[in-house]
C-alpha cells in the first residue's frame, strides 16, 4: 500500500486562517475556487429545480401542472441559470482557478484581487437573477429574442439582462486573468510545449471569454435601452431589424458553448493520460485544436438563424463553416482514442467520466453536424432534436468532464480521498440517467415535438415519460457525489500528495497545498505527461507512489 504522508499538522491553504473574513476577503486563488464551487453548486440546484418542474409538466400530454406562461418562465429560467450561472463559470472558475497557477508553477494568478472581484461580480449577478426570478422572472426563453423581449413581454427583461451583464464581467475578468497568468507567470522551464493540455484548453476558453462576452454585453444594453425608451432598433414596426439582435446575440452565444466545452476537454486530456499511463497522442494537435475551436467558433453563429430569415447565401456560408468547426473537435476525439490504444487502462471514477464524455460528446457533436445541414435543420429546428443535441454536449460533455475533474483533483483540493466504490456507482448512475433522459428527446424531435411547449400530442407521452424517469435517475447520480464529497471532508482517508501517480506540477506539492502552492519555485526540466518516467521501476522520485491507489 502507498504510504500516507502524515498531513494533520501541516499548514495548508485551508487551515492557514479561519473565519468568514479570511474567506470573503481572500486573494488566494484556491480559496476563491472553493467560493465559486459553493456558488455554482447552489445555482446548479436552482437550475435543476426548474428542470424538475419542466420534466414533471411533460409527464402528461396536457398542460396541467402549470399554466403556459409559467411554463415559459420555467424553461427560460432553467436556461439562463444553467448557462450563465453554472456552465460558463463552472470549470474555469472552480478547477481553472484552483489549478492554473499550480500547473504552471506560479504562486497565484497574475491579478489575485481581480480574481476576488470576479467572484463578487458573479455573486452580485446571481443575487440580481435570484431577485428577478422571485419577483416574476422572464418568459422569453434564455435567448430573449426581439421584438418579443423589447416590445411585447411584460416580464423582467431589464433586470435579468443586467444580472447577466454583471455576471458577464465576472467571466471576462477570469479570462483576462488566465491569459496574463499563462503568458507571464510560467515557472522556469515551463515552455509552451510542456504545458498541460488543461492549460491550453483554458487559454483558448479565455480568448473566447475576452472577445465574445463584450458583444452580448452591449446587446443587453441595447435591449435595455430599447425596452425602457421604446426605441426601434430591433422593432420592425419602427424600422428596426429583429435579426440584428440575433446576429449580435449569437456572435457571443455560439462561442459561449465553446467556453462551456473546452475546459471539459482539457480535463478529459488530463484524465485519459493519467489512467492510460501515456502521453496524450498528438499533443501538439490537441493543443492547437483548442485554439482552432476558439477561432472557428467565432465564425459560425448564424447557424442558429437558418430559419429566421437570413439570406440563403449567408446560410450556405455559415453551414459550411459549421462543418469546419467540427474538425478540431474530431481531432481531439481521435487523439484521445489513440491515447487509449495500447495504454494501461485503469477504471477509476475519473476515467469512467472520461469514457462517458467520449461517447456522449461524440454523439452530441455528430448531431451538431446533422443540424449544420440546411435541409435537416429546417426539419428539426425548434424541436427536441436540438434540445437533445445541446444537452448531450453540455451535460454529457461538459458536466461529465466537470465531475471527472472534481473526482480527479478532489484529493488535491481537500486533502481527502473520496470513496471509490460509491464514485464508480455514481458515475454509472449518471451515465444511465443521462441517456435515459436525453436519448428519447432525439426521437421526439425527429418525429416533430416542438421545444418550449408545455403540452404535446398523446402519442409522444411514452418518450416523455422515459425522459422524466431518466431525469430522476440523473438527479440521484448528481446528489451522490455531493454527499460523499462532503462526507470525505470529515471521514475520508487523508490523501497523499499524488494518489494517482499523475504527471503535472500540481501533484508535486502537498494535498492540500500550502497557500503559495510550492515550498520552492519549481524548475521544469521534463516534458508533459512523463508517464514512462513516473512508472519506471528506476524512478525513485520522492513522490513516487504505486499504481493509482485512491480507495
Amino acid at each position, binding site marked *: 500500500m502507498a504510504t500516507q504522508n502524515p498531513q494533520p499538522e501541516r499548514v495548508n491553504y485551508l487551515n492557514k486562517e479561519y473565519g468568514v473574513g479570511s474567506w470573503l476577503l481572500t486573494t488566494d486563488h484556491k480559496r476563491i475556487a472553493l467560493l465559486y464551487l459553493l456558488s455554482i453548486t447552489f445555482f446548479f440546484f436552482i437550475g435543476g429545480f426548474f428542470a424538475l418542474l419542466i420534466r414533471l409538466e411533460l409527464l402528461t400530454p396536457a398542460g396541467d401542472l402549470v399554466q403556459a406562461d409559467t411554463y415559459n418562465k420555467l424553461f427560460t429560467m432553467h436556461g439562463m441559470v444553467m448557462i450563465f450561472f453554472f456552465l460558463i463559470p463552472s470549470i474555469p472558475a472552480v478547477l481553472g482557478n484552483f489549478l492554473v497557477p499550480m500547473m504552471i508553477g*506560479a*504562486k*497565484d*494568478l*497574475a*491579478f*489575485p484581487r481581480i480574481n476576488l472581484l470576479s467572484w463578487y461580480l458573479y455573486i452580485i449577478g446571481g443575487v440580481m437573477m435570484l431577485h428577478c426570478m422571485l419577483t416574476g422572472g422572464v418568459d422569453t426563453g434564455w435567448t430573449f429574442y426581439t421584438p418579443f423581449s423589447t416590445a411585447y413581454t411584460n416580464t423582467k427583461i431589464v433586470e435579468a439582462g443586467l444580472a447577466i451583464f454583471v455576471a458577464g464581467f465576472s467571466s*471576462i475578468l477570469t479570462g*483576462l*486573468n488566465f*491569459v*496574463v497568468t499563462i*503568458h*507571464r*507567470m*510560467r515557472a*522556469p522551464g515551463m*515552455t*509552451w510545449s510542456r504545458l498541460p493540455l488543461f492549460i491550453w484548453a483554458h487559454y483558448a476558453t479565455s480568448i473566447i471569454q*475576452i*472577445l*465574445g*462576452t*463584450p*458583444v452580448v*454585453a*452591449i*446587446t443587453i*444594453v*441595447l435591449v435595455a*435601452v*430599447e425596452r425602457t*425608451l*421604446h*426605441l*426601434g*432598433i430591433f422593432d420592425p414596426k*419602427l*424600422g*428596426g*431589424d429583429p435579426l*440584428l439582435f440575433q*446576429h*449580435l446575440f449569437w*456572435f457571443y452565444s455560439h462561442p459561449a458553448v465553446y467556453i462551456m466545452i473546452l475546459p471539459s476537454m482539457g480535463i478529459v486530456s488530463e484524465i485519459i493520460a493519467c489512467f492510460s499511463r501515456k502521453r496524450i497522442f498528438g499533443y501538439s494537435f490537441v493543443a492547437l485544436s483548442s485554439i482552432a475551436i476558439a477561432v472557428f467558433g467565432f465564425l459560425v453563429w448564424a447557424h442558429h438563424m437558418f430559419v429566421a430569415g437570413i439570406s440563403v447565401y449567408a446560410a450556405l456560408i455559415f453551414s459550411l463553416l459549421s462543418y469546419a468547426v467540427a474538425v478540431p473537435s474530431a481531432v481531439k476525439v481521435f487523439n484521445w482514442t489513440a491515447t487509449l490504444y495500447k495504454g494501461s487502462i485503469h477504471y477509476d471514477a475519473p476515467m469512467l467520466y472520461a469514457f462517458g464524455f467520449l461517447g456522449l460528446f461524440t454523439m452530441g457533436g455528430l448531431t451538431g453536424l446533422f443540424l449544420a445541414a440546411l435541409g435537416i435543420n429546417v426539419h428539426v429546428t425548434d424541436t427536441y432534436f436540438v434540445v437533445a443535441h445541446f444537452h448531450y454536449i453540455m451535460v454529457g460533455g461538459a458536466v461529465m468532464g466537470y465531475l471527472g475533474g472534481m473526482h480527479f483533483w478532489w484529493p488535491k483540493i481537500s486533502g481527502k480521498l473520496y470513496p471509490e466504490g460509491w464514485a464508480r456507482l455514481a458515475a454509472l448512475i449518471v451515465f444511465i440517467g443521462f441517456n435515459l433522459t436525453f436519448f428519447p428527446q432525439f426521437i421526439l424531435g425527429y418525429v416533430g415535438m416542438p421545444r418550449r411547449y408545455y403540452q404535446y400530442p398523446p402519442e409522444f407521452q411514452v418518450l416523455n415519460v422515459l425522459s422524466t424517469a431518466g431525469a430522476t435517475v440523473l438527479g440521484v447520480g448528481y446528489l451522490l457525489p455531493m454527499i460523499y464529497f462532503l462526507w470525505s471532508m470529515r471521514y475520508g482517508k487523508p490523501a497523499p500528495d499524488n494518489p494517482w501517480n499523475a504527471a503535472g506540477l500540481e501533484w508535486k506539492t502537498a494535498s492540500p497545498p500550502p497557500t*503559495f502552492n510550492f515550498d*520552492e*519555485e519549481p524548475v521544469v526540466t521534463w516534458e508533459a505527461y512523463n508517464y514512462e518516467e513516473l512508472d519506471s521501476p528506476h524512478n525513485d522520485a520522492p513522490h513516487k507512489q504505486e499504481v493509482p491507489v485512491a480507495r
Partner: protein
Amino acid sequence: MPDSQTVAVSGEGHNPALLHHFATEEQQRNSASLGMWIFLATEVMFFGGLFCAYLIYRLKYFAEFSAASKTLALSLGATNTAVLICSSLTVVLAVYAAQHAKRSMLLGNLILTIILGFVFLGIKAVEYNEKFEKHHVPGPSFQFNEVNVPGHPGQYANPSHAQIFFALYFVMTGLHALHMIIGIGIFVWLLTAAWKGRFTPEYNTPVEMGGLYWHFVDIIWIYLFPLLYLIDRHP
C-alpha cells in the same frame, strides 16, 4: 515567453510596490501591461457591437442617416476631436515625465489632461442639450418631421428611421462619455498619487496604464466623429 526569472527571495531589498506573487518588477509591469491591453480588447468588442449595428442601419437607411447627421453641430464635433487629440498629447507627455522623474511636468500634464477631459464633456453637454431642445432625443418626445434628405429636395426623411440614427448616436456617444468620465476619475487618482510622489522612473506603471486607457477612449472618438458627424456634408 517570459524572461527566465530567478527564484526571488521575497522581502528584503525590493521596491515596496512589488506584489508578493510576482518574482520581479519586470514581470509585474509586463503583466499589468498585458492585462490592460486585453481589457482594451474587450472594450473594442464592446463598442464593436454598436459599430456593427451602425453599419447595418447606415447602409439600410442612408437617406435618414444623412439627414440626421447634418443636424449635428460639425464645429463642436471637430473641436472635441481636437480636444481629445491634445489630451492624448498631454497624456503621453505625462508618461514621459513620470519615466524621467520630472515632477512638475508630470503634474502639469495630468492636470491639463483632466481639464481637457472636462472641456470635452462640457461641449458634449452643450450638444446633448441642443438635441434635447430640438426633440431629437429618442423616446416619446422624438420629432423629426419634414426634414429634407440631403441631395434629394422634396424627399422627407422617415422619422422612425431617423430615430434609429439618434438612438445609436446617443448610445455610442453616451457610452463614450461614460468612459471619459471614468478616465477623468482615473486621472484624478493618478494626480493625487503623483502629488504624493508615488511615481518614479522605476515604478510608473499606473501612469502608463491610465495612459493606455485614455488613448483608447481617444481612438474610439476618432472613429465616432466621421461616422456620426460627416456622413453627408457636401453642399
